[in-house]
C-alpha cells in the first residue's frame, strides 16, 4: 500500500512531499532547538539578495533559512517513507541540582505532526470514472500542474509555519535560552519520532490545537498541525551560581601606560592636572577598595580618609581584582601599618586622599610586588614587611606628607611620582625610591617645610632632616626639571626662587617617556630590599653628607648633577631624562659606596646647599 501510494504520485510531487517533511522539520527546529540553531544564530542575513549564500535546499519553497540543524543532517537517511508521520515533540526540561538535564523527565510543550495522508479511495489508476481528474496522469502537463499546485501551496504554508512558530509561547522561551549565555534552569529539547504517542487526558486538556490548511495532492494531502501549551508558566531566572555577567567598568584604570598618557596628554593645564584627573579616577576606584576592608592595600594615613570620606564607586569587579590581589598581600600591608602607624606630622591625607589611593590601583595593576617607596600601600609590593620598608614608608610618608599642603597638587605630584614608578615598573622606583634617595631628595625637598620635617622624623636623623631642609630649594629645582611638579612645587620653587616654566603637558609627557624608558626596578629592588633598607637612611645620610661635605668628592656626580640642575628651568625633556640618568648613577654610586664606607651619621647642621 505504501509503495503503491508512493508510486501513484508523480515523481515531482513525490519530491515535493519529501522536501515538505524536511522543510517542516527545518523550520520548527530552527526556532525551537536552542543549541543547534545557536551555531548559526548570528548568521547575518544578506538583506539585498536572498540568493546569496543560499544552499540548494534553501530554494525549496523559496524560503532560505539558516543552516540545517544537526537533526536534519541524517534526516534523509532516517526517514523511511513519506507515509510515516513526522512527529516533533518540543520538550521543556528542568535542570536538576547537578546541573544536568534529566532526559525523559521533561514536559512536552509542543507537538508538531507532519504527515502525508493518502486518500482511502485513491490508489493507482483506473478505479473509476469519478476520480478521473485526480487519477489521470497521462500527460506531463497535468503532472506539472499538479506539481505547481502542490509546490505553491506548500510555499504559502511554510510562510505561515514560519510565522506561527514565532507566535507560539515556546518561541519566547527559545529566544531567551538561545540569546543568553547564562546557565538556565530550563532547557528546550526535541524528540523526533515517526509515531504519535497519545497525550494523557490532562495533557490533552491543557493543550490547544492548530491545524494548517492541508495541501491537496493527487492521491492524498499533506497536513501540518500543532498541539501546544498556550501558557508557559516557567521562570527563566538564572541559577544563583551563574557567573556574573561582564560588567563595563566605567572608571577602569587600565594600564597606566595608556591611561596615564591619555590623561596627561589630554589636559592642557598644569602638568599635575592630568595626574589629578587620573588620580581622581583612581581615587574612586581605589577608594572603594580602600574602604572595603582593612586589608586593602592603602596606607593607613590615607585609607582612613578614603574609607570615611570617599564614596564607594566602582563595581565589585573593580574591587575584586585589587581585593584579590591584595588579599595575598594583606599581611604585607598590615605590617606597614604597624611599622608606620601614623605619620609623625599629621599628613593631611584627608586633604588629598586621592594622593595616596592611586598607589593602590597602580600597584595592583603592576601586579603584586611593586614596591612603591611610599609604601603604605604596600602597593602590591612583594617585599616583606620588614624594616626595609621603612624607607618606603618614609618615602610614602613623605608623599603622604606632601599631602599636608592644603594644595592637592602636592599629592598629585606625589601621585605623579607613584604613577611614574608604576608605569616604569620599577625604574622610577630606582630613581626615586628610598634606596637611592633620589626620591628622598625629591621628597625631602618636595615636601614643604612641614613635610620635610615629617620626612626626617619618620626615617631620617635630624641631620638628614636638616640636610633635606637645606637642600630643599636645590632639590626642588631638580624636581622641576625632572617634570615632577605641581602647583605646590611651583610655590616651593617660587619660594626658592625658581619657576616652573615648562608647559605642564610637555613636562608630564617627558616624565612619562622617562619612566617608560627607565629599566625595571623590581629585580633590583626586591633582592636589595632587605640589605638595602637598613642602609637607606645611611645612604641618604651619605648622600646628604657628601653633598654637604665635599663637592669634590665622589659625590661630585651628584653635586655636579645638582649644579647642572641649576640651569635654566626651561629645559627639554631630554635634559630632564639625562639628569634623571645622572641621578641614577649617583644613586648607584652611593649604594656602592655605602657598602664599603662606614656610615657617617652625623650631619652638620646648617650645611650649605650644594649649589654651584
Amino acid at each position: 500500500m505504501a509503495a503503491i501510494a508512493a508510486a501513484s504520485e508523480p515523481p515531482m510531487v513525490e519530491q515535493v512531499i519529501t522536501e515538505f517533511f524536511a522543510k517542516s522539520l527545518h523550520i520548527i527546529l530552527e526556532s525551537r532547538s536552542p543549541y543547534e540553531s545557536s551555531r548559526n544564530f548570528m548568521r547575518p542575513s544578506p538583506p539585498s539578495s536572498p540568493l546569496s549564500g543560499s544552499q540548494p535546499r534553501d530554494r525549496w519553497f523559496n524560503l532560505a533559512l539558516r543552516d540545517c540543524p544537526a537533526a536534519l543532517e541524517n534526516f534523509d537517511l532516517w526517514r523511511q517513507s513519506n507515509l510515516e508521520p513526522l512527529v516533533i515533540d518540543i520538550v521543556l526540561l528542568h535542570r536538576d541540582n547537578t546541573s544536568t538535564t534529566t532526559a525523559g523527565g521533561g514536559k512536552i510543550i509542543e507537538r508538531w505532526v507532519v504527515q502525508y495522508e493518502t486518500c482511502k479511495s485513491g490508489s493507482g489508476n483506473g478505479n473509476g470514472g469519478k476520480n478521473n481528474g485526480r487519477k489521470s496522469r497521462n500527460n506531463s502537463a497535468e503532472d506539472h500542474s499538479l506539481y505547481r499546485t502542490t509546490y505553491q501551496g506548500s510555499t504559502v504554508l511554510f510562510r505561515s509555519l514560519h510565522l506561527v512558530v514565532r507566535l507560539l509561547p515556546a518561541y519566547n522561551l527559545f529566544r531567551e535560552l538561545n540569546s543568553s549565555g547564562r546557565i538556565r534552569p530550563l532547557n528546550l529539547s526535541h524528540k523526533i519520532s515517526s509515531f504519535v504517542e497519545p497525550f494523557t487526558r490532562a495533557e490533552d486538556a491543557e493543550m490547544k490545537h492548530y491545524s494548517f490548511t492541508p495541501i491537496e495532492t493527487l492521491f492524498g494531502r499533506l497536513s501540518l498541525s500543532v498541539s501546544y501549551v498556550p501558557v508557559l508558566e516557567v521562570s527563566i531566572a538564572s541559577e544563583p551560581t551563574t557567573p556574573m555577567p561582564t560588567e563595563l567598568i566605567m572608571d577602569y584604570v587600565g594600564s597606566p601606560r595608556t591611561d596615564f598618557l591619555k590623561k596627561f596628554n589630554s589636559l592642557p593645564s598644569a602638568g599635575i592636572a592630568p595626574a589629578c584627573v587620573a588620580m581622581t579616577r583612581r581615587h574612586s576606584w581605589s577608594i572603594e577598595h580602600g574602604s572595603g576592608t582593612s586589608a586593602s592595600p592603602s596606607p593607613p594615613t590615607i585609607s582612613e580618609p578614603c574609607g570615611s570620606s570617599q564614596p564607594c564607586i566602582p563595581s565589585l569587579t573593580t574591587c575584586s581584582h585589587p581585593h584579590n590581589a591584595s588579599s595575598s598581600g594583606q599581611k604585607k600591608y598590615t605590617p606597614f601599618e604597624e611599622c608606620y602607624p601614623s605619620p609623625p606630622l599629621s599628613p593631611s591625607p584627608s586633604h588629598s586622599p586621592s594622593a595616596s589611593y592611586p598607589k593602590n590601583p597602580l600597584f595592583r595593576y603592576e601586579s603584586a610586588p611593586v614596591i612603591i617607596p611610599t609604601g603604605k600601600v604596600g602597593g602590591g609590593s612583594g617585599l616583606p614587611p620588614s624594616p626595609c620598608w621603612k624607607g618606603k614608608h618614609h618615602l610614602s610618608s613623605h608623599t603622604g606628607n606632601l599631602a599636608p599642603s592644603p594644595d592637592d597638587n602636592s599629592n598629585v605630584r606625589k601621585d605623579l611620582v607613584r604613577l611614574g614608578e608604576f608605569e616604569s615598573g620599577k625604574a622610577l622606583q630606582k630613581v626615586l625610591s628610598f634606596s637611592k634617595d633620589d626620591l628622598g631628595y625629591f621628597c625631602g625637598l618636595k615636601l614643604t617645610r612641614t613635610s620635610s620635617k615629617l620626612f626626617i622624623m619618620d626615617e631620617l636623623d635630624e641631620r638628614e632632616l636638616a640636610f633635606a631642609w637645606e637642600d630643599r630649594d636645590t632639590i626642588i629645582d631638580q624636581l622641576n626639571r625632572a617634570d615632577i611638579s605641581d602647583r605646590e612645587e611651583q610655590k616651593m620653587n617660587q619660594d626658592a626662587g625658581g619657576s616652573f616654566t615648562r608647559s605642564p603637558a610637555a613636562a608630564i609627557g617627558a616624565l612619562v617617556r622617562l619612566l617608560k624608558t627607565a629599566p625595571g626596578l623590581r629585580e633590583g629592588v626586591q633582592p636589595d630590599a632587605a640589605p638595602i633598607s637598613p642602609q637607606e637612611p645611611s645612604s641618604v645620610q651619605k648622600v646628604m653628607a657628601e653633598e654637604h661635605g665635599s663637592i669634590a668628592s665622589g659625590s661630585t656626580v651628584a653635586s655636579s648633577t645638582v649644579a647642572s640642575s641649576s640651569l635654566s628651568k626651561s629645559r627639554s625633556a631630554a635634559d630632564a631624562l639625562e639628569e634623571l640618568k645622572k641621578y641614577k648613577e649617583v644613586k648607584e654610586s652611593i649604594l656602592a659606596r655605602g657598602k664599603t664606607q662606614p656610615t657617617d651619621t652625623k650631619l652638620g647642621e646648617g650645611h650649605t646647599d650644594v649649589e654651584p
Partner: protein
Amino acid sequence: MRCILHTIFFHRTLTLVRPKDVDCGLFEITYVQCGLADLEKEVDEKINQFIAWVEKHPNRRSQVCLSFFDEKNKNPCWFSNKTERIYWEQWFINLHVISPKGHGKSHSSKATTDLGGKALEETSSRRAALGLLIQEVLFQIINFANEKKDHIPLISDRIFNHEIMIPSSSDSVFGWNADVLRRVLNS
C-alpha cells in the same frame, strides 16, 4: 500596521526570500518580513502617509487596502493604450485610531499621581489587549492566506504587483472610497 502589512506581503511574496524576524516590542510579538529593502521602504512610506492622515482626522475609522493585481493591456484603441489592472486579491484592514485623551484636572497632587498611575495601568492593559488582538489578526491572515491559493498567479522572479491604498487628505467623508470609485469609472 507594519506588522499586518508585512505579514500579508510575506504570505504573498513567493519569490525566494530570506525571512527577517522583527520584534515588535510594543506588543511583544515577533513577526516576519520578507527581507526586501524596497518593500520595507514602500511600507514605511505608506504608513507615514497614513499616520499623517490620522493626525489630521483623529478618532475616525479608516481602512487600508492592500491589493495584488495583474496588469494586462486593454484592447488597444486608436486614442489610448491603457493597461488594465486585474485585482486577484485584496486585503482590507479596518482601523479605528483613537487618540489618547488628556487627563482631567485633579484637586491634589496625590490625585494626579493616582491618575497618572491609573493611566499607566490602562495603557499597559490596553497595550496587552492590542497585542492579543494583533495576534488574532495575524492568525486570521494565516487562515485567509492558506484557505484559497488557486487564484495566486504563478511564482515569478519578482514580487507580485501590488498597491497600498490609504485614506488621502483630499478624501471626504467617504475616505478612500472616492479613489476606488474613480478607478472603477476609469476602468
